[in-house]
């Protein structure tokens, strides 16, 4: 559900679209690279995504 410009409510939580898009861009780069190199496993990728979301959400 769209709220203020740049914000959206997901499962009752307000999500800053700019922050989420930053993580998405980072993820796109990572996935494209990983398809080529197979360097990171699924578990590592999940852990990286969670770490990135946390950093981005808590950034002021």
């Amino acid at each position, binding site marked *: 559900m769209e709220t203020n410009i740049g914000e959206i409510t997901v*499962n*009752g*939580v307000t999500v800053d679209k700019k922050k989420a898009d930053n993580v998405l861009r980072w993820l796109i780069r990572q996935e494209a690279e990983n398809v*080529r190199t197979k360097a990171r496993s*699924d578990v590592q990728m*999940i852990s990286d995504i969670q770490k990135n*979301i946390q950093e981005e959400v808590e950034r002021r």
Partner: protein
Amino acid sequence: MLLKSLKLKDFRQFKGEQTIVFSDDPEKNVTVIMGDNGTGKTTLAQAFTWCLYGETDFDDKILLCKATLRDMLPGQTEKVRAELTLTHKGTEYIIVSEQQYRKTDKSDKPVEVAGQRGFTIMYKQGGQVEYVKQSQLDGRMKEILPFELARYFFFDGERITVMSKRLSQGKGDEFARAVRSLLGLDAFTSAIDHLKKTIKDYDKKYDARSDSKIEDYTYQISNFEQTIELIEMRLSEIADEEVLVTERIGDLQAAIEKNKKSEELAEREKKLISRRDALIVQKGRNITGLLSALKRAPAYFAKKMMRDSLQQLTKTGKTDKSVPFVNAETIKYLIERGRCICGAEVCTGTDACNTLTELFSYVPPKSIGDSIADFREKCKERVRISESMFDDFEAKYADVCACDSEYAEVLQDIADVGKQLLGMDDVGKLQADRKRYETNLRGLHMEKSDCERRMGGLETECKRVETERDKLTLKDDNNRRVTIYKAYAQYMYNTLLEQYAEEERKIREELEETVNDIFHSLFDEGFMLELSERYDVNVILSDFGGSSETSTAQNISIIFAFIAGVIKMARESQKEENGLLVTEPYPFVMDAPLSSFDKKRIENVCDVLPRIAEQVIIFIKDTDGEIAEEHLGNRIGRRLTFHAPNNSKTETYVS
């Protein structure tokens, strides 16, 4: 994926160890392999699929070279090996398939498989050779070239109809997934998959100490998700089964149409057999009739003699002078009594006595008159009966001959019908099979509806429980953070799904356009190729719409166009530096592709394919060698010839 070399050891005709090196020069990217029929061109195409997937189309699944087997002793073992070296996404891979065989002393089964097929994938990393783990072999092979697509890349000219049909009919989700992967959508699907797993992983991070209901809700959600996942898996299986069953129904329908004549022929055969049996009975009756007519033959042949005898009797005037019912004893009694019946006196010398004495000559036992009269009657009767004997005999004989002639014709017809029926399927059985598959398909449709209904209910319930849990988690700092992070992951997941759907649609439309461009450069205008969401290719008449029947040349062009389109797009999207599209060039391996084309189309194919595909490997007959040289000459990087010494069917060598 580009092919560097293929090393074969005792694989079918390829005796001993032989290596085939392919051209990977970007300008001269064509490798031409020439050989007469039976020298192993198709075998080489099959060697690729065996090496990569352990599959071949050979009826005889024994791959050991027969010439090698001949030199082996009973109990001795020998290994068949195929080693393919290729580069994929900048990494050099060596893929090896091996199978051990043992010679036996049995004449009906001279060789047996010894152990399982060995399969290894090695790759070079930093100068070191590394092995792909056993558990990851399937996944890695899928990533290099999915099996579902391999049959199109290793193009077998002798299986055009099957391939074309597979391309136009449903092929299942695996095929669509494989095409999407080749078109560079792997990174998209990986990102979506990782985000989905991330969301699930957040569920494990909730701390239930703040409220015990959180744990209950999480447990319920987990159960819902597991059940939904099982239903989704079943729905995917149903979709694949539907494709197979629909395809089978189509095949059976086609076979029924094709064998419709067999139904008529079987009916005709039945009638002919019934007529043959009737003729056998009739022949027996005719012969009995003929023999019966022959019984009158003596009378017939004695007719003249009887006529002559009767004439002689008439001439002699020998008529019957006897007194009916009067015999010699009666006359003797009258003479002895001395008086006749009429009362006249009978004494020696009287007229009465003389007349009675004369009667002795005519009365029984020596009644000549009676015998003559009897003879005359019999003669007349026999002459009358035998009068029609010749005509009767002639008629019966004609019946026997006509019956024999028809019998021979019927036998010939039965043999002819039998020959026509040979190789035809029994339509009744085909119809029964089709009915069974149609029932099966109806069952699948019902199960699908049921699964979808159940899944809808579970999803709604799961959503409700999730909302309840989210309310509780927001009351605790730690859990609130997890919920917030999860919401971000959910937003990213939703966004990516939308992007993927849009990107996939754009790519499919672009592929359709590319495939049509290539198809029109190979084949006439007037037809359009349409790609469905599952990448099924349908031929549409441009002017009038509606699907069209396809010829062999058209079928080949469709397959060429589709694969060349995928290859072209894969190459082009490689140039894009950003985004989630990650693709790879692929080779086009074609067995006997030119023989179905006319001169103009050969020119088109030879011009188009080496420009589109990064690598082309083409197997041709010796007789097509000149054509290949004429049209591919400046693109040929390697020329190889297969030759079989003394036209051997069991040995082939590469030079």
